[in-house]
């Protein structure tokens, strides 16, 4: 009787306190249909050939008990991996909506993790252990390193992790142990200009923007500055690169196309209100939304406007191109499907929270996180 009572107490205590732990059931199989990093790949194209055509319907939603930063869910194998602003990393089975596990990594996870093999590389706002390599299969942290307060999604390229922090330092980190390979510092940074733009890679050049309004291009191996392109206002959006051109918007609402090799401007277009969203590159278009709610598609060759569609509220995060359809959310709690060729709205779905993060598309589903702590999975509506 007494033992039964103790067992009951233990069960109650474990229910109340919650059991943390994250351990996937089997080694991960990552293939081309996955979405293993922010904006899908190192070039941050936010585009996939996998086509999910609207109308969509909600398949499931999952409460991850904390706010969600500016990254997106990442999808590997059959799992959705996402961090919250409480510092917890969650894994959800994308087919069953079952929580596989969660682990507390210390402090706010603003960006998306990047998954390589069985390891998720996660950046946090914790100044003591801000870059963490977490083995999703063994459920253990392989290493934790102090790289300052990080609010971006890490980039993985050629066995190295690239990351910038809020004090204006940018690091290249060795993948297996977390040791620093090189460090780059925004020069004369007396005004605490931080790096909140997630890095991209193109042609072995690491690209990112910074609060000082500059786009930086660094040699991925040495960290030496290849060029610096100064815009007129701070940059929060991540760059997107393709065909040796990088596309990026700034908080003055100007979108720039810059030659990756020379650092020369190819074109620029002013959209009117600040841009926090990264661009999506598809169909020879640069599709980017601004805080004024305007979704603009510019021809990547010359920046001429192909179409513009007003979505009625702030666009805080970039959208994704899925076949001929572009998906994007707004702070008005609406998820849109827009026809890439002409910008017409194909489908609109009201959701229960503000959409501040980019969607991800993989395995026939569209995943989106909302600021009321939910991760949602949509799939094509069955007639």
């Amino acid at each position: 009787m007494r033992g039964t009572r103790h067992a009951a107490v233990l069960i109650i205590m474990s229910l109340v306190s919650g059991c943390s732990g994250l351990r996937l059931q089997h080694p991960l199989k990552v293939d081309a249909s996955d979405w293993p990093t922010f904006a899908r790949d190192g070039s941050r194209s936010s585009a996939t050939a996998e086509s999910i055509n609207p109308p969509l319907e909600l398949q499931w939603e999952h409460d991850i008990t904390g706010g969600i930063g500016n990254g997106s869910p990442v999808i590997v194998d059959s799992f959705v991996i996402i961090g919250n602003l409480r510092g917890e990393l969650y894994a959800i089975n994308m087919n069953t909506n079952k929580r596989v596990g969660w682990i507390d990594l210390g402090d706010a996870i603003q960006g998306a993790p990047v998954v390589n093999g069985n390891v998720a590389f996660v950046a946090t706002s914790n100044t003591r252990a801000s870059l963490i390599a977490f083995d999703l299969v063994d459920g253990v942290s392989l290493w934790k390193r102090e790289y300052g307060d990080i609010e971006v999604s890490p980039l993985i390229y050629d066995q190295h992790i690239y990351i910038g922090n809020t004090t204006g330092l940018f690091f290249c980190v060795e993948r297996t142990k977390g040791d620093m390979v090189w460090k780059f510092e925004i020069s004369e940074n007396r005004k605490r200009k931080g790096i909140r733009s997630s890095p991209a890679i193109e042609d072995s050049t690491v690209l990112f923007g910074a609060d000082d309004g500059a786009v930086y291009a660094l040699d991925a191996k040495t960290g030496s500055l290849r060029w610096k392109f100064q815009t007129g206002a701070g940059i929060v959006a991540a760059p997107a690169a393709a065909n040796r051109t990088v596309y990026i918007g700034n908080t003055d609402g100007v979108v720039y196309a810059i030659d990756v090799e020379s650092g020369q401007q190819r074109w620029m277009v002013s959209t009117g209100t600040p841009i926090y969203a990264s661009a999506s590159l598809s169909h020879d278009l640069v599709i980017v939304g601004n805080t004024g709610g305007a979704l603009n598609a510019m021809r990547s060759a010359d920046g001429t406007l192909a179409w513009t569609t007003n979505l009625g509220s702030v666009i805080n995060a970039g959208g994704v191109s899925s076949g001929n359809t572009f998906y994007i959310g707004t702070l008005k709690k609406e998820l849109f499907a827009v026809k890439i060729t002409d910008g017409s709205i194909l489908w609109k779905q009201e959701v229960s929270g503000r959409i501040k993060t980019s969607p991800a598309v993989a395995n026939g589903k569209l995943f989106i996180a909302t600021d009321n702590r939910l991760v949602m999975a949509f799939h094509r509506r069955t007639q």
Partner: protein
Amino acid sequence: MKRLSSLLPVLLFLCVTNVSAQFFYFGRNKVQYTDFEWHVLRTEHFDIYYYPQMKDLAERGAFFAEESYKLLEVKFNHTLNIRVPLIFYSSHLHFEQTNVTGGFIPEGVGGFFEFLKGRVVIPSDGSVAQFKHVIRHELVHVFMHSKLSRVLIDHRKPQDKTPPLWFTEGLAEYWSTDWDTQAEMVMRDAVLNDIVVGLSDMDQIYGSFLMYKEGQNALQFLNNQYGNEKILLLMENFWKENSFNDLFKITIGKNYKEFDEEWLYALKKQYYPLLGNYDQASRVTVNVVRGGFNAKPVVFEHDSTREVFFIGNQTGYTGIYRKKLDETDPEASATSVIEGEKSDEFEAFHPFRSGMDISKNGVLAFVTKSGENDALHLYDVAMDTIVQTFRFKDIVSIGSPSWSPDGKRLVFSSLDMTGNNDLYILNTETGDLQKLTNDYYDDRDPSWSPLGNTIAFSSDRTPFGSRGAYNLFLYTITTGTIDYLTYGKETAKSPAWSKDGSKLAFTCDVDGTDNIWIMNVEKRFPAGARSMTKVTHFTTSAFDPTWTASGDLVFAAFENFSFQIKTLKNINAVAETSTTVKLVDLSNKEKPWEAKSIAGMTEVKSFRYEGDYSLDIAQSAISTDPVFGTSGGAFVALSDLLGNDQYYFLLYNTAQSQDELLSSFNVAISRVSLGRRTNTAYGIYRFAGRRYDLTDKDQFFFERVFGAYFALSYPLTKFQRIETVVSMSNSDKEVTGTIEDRKALLLSNSISFTHDNSLWGPSGPIDGSRFNITLAFTSDIQYSNVNYYTIIADYRQYFRLSQRSAFASRAWLFYNDGKESRRFVMGGSWDLRGWPRWTIRGEKLWLASQELRFPFIDQFAVRFPFGGVSFWSIRGALFLDAGGAWDTQYTETLGSTGGGLRMNLGGVLVLRYDIGKRIERNFAQFQKGLFHQFFFGWDF
């Protein structure tokens, strides 16, 4: 003093409402003069509450609100999850009646955001630019509140912290308006007079207009120097640090102190060079009145005497003062002519909005709030009496009356229920009223020409008016035509005619702050152009010029964060030597602005408001008392969106054993209605539990009481009210340790009259008077166990000795007589000082107190190595108390005398320490030794 009677449950209920003025013992009244018929306009993001008379204004406000929403969602990178209730009033006088807040709304408050229910309350003052500004200002608060809550929720942090006031108000200003003339004036003055403080010392100017503008300036500097991302980052990083100083450090790399060094230095660099071309007003003018707030001067010349009349607050009450213009000592005090804020007739002046005028034969026309609306008063200077008062049925507020040359008519501006500010002419002999303008443009400051044929006035009826610019116009009385006198993006206001009617003096901010300019109205240049000449070159500002017969100008100037009356001699000679001349090109005038309205632009719905109730507070509590044991319960309050109707629910249990559980439930339900002039409250209650009777030492009893009450309060004026309470309760009382069991069906009736026009200093009243008389009768209508009557008389008078010192007097008589009449108690820091608290008891009680109140220490600062702390406004007191209490036969007069200190903590609590001697034996001898009492509470 504490009185325990069967009325207590009723009074306790009333005390928990926020209608403090109505039901607390003293206090002024928030009178609901106007019976508003509320409607709701639903737009995409807002529910706009308005009354039908102001429908057009509400639709314009709705447009501004939606326009602001679009702008702010971008600035904050955030949207609102809830519809925002916007409650509009068409005038400040109506706004002052709102029940959304329980407190009084001062003249200078332009609107407010109540964050518990997310309500925004905004009046119009006739200016569309100001209306738009206030809407955006308050919506910045709404967005900031929502954004910061979101940031804290996202990171699962407690939502119990807020940013400092300088940041919330500074940002509300920065993101709602340009750096305007007033802001420039205040900052120039603060920097050049060395009263500017850094962010680290903002508590020194907490809540002041200077704090608003310094906050705005600091954020402007931050944005320009550190980047436009920093302000938003301060909010997005809000979860990271508990101290805003630390938040500054991680966001911009500098803490307050380091930031201050840069910012204050930049301000000096910006403003010190002004002294090369500009003057501080006191250096180049003759000072007439200094100290306090002084504005709107007019000059009356008679028998070779020149007297200036102005609105000031030298005694603490805003009123009209007079002083000889040629008085050489600016420190010499002015004579109070009309004392405002003390009587029903002159309830409040509008020193920012309405000027005065005096006729040739010495009749001063001025405006005060008087009951529901403004009244126009005529005061005969020679007779020292009000000779006429005008009130108008459809006019809410009145501004700046100006006499016709014959002294029979007055022109003034007026705001009606629609919220439009137009010009009117009043024939003071017949009372006839003629409306001169009738549109949504804001017409102000009319000034009747001495030649009689024209009226100069200031108006926003220009292409620049929607952005807040006012130009001068000339209204020709015979034709009704309106012609431009000035034209441009700057603001020109307060026109005043020279005695010969050829020139106008007025203020204009064309060079950044308000200075005085002169225009020769008779002189025209090619293409109809006019010329204006600057005659003051002050670093800060000059306002409200008025001419003397000899051509001097009398005006108000802002300096050292106060408004002072000044004179500038022989203004024509000054104008001739001035090199700052501006040609007013009137050849290419564009059409005035047109009002934008939500009507027809988007889908809106309008319907009549019928009460929208939501939770104010829901609280549960468990308390443990060493005597009465543990009790627990919950309290819930609901009110409607306009705050007019409130419900209170109380449930708790005082059982000390399982057997007592059912019998020890305490339940009360109460409803308070404040929407009409007569406020009512009623409810039912059941209380049961062990109690300690303070009036009879060591007596514990168990009492079950259930009943109902009805209370009514009718404010006669802001200063006086009548209240009545009727309650019936069934009481069953068992005294512990005895077999005594008293049952009674108690019927209580009371009626009281309260007067309060006191003016308060940091620790209590220093002027005016307070008076309460209450008559009550309590009887047991079933068993006749209880049957007694009550008389309470409480009179307090405050005699002002100087600006900050006063002599206070108090007299009490509390009288209960009859069967089982309750005892009053006395003793302690609040009444008979020196004697132990509540130890003097009797069914009858009297008390007399005399107290001298004076300033003692203005600031007491201690600086530790890790920081400093300051205590402000420590006041001193010398007192003498006398009193006695008895049941059937008078026993002894007791007393005390001594001195004390009072210290106000944050405006909500006064700590008090008294030391002195107790007096006993009918005032025949002092007790040995000194008493010391440390307690809290305001002065009586």
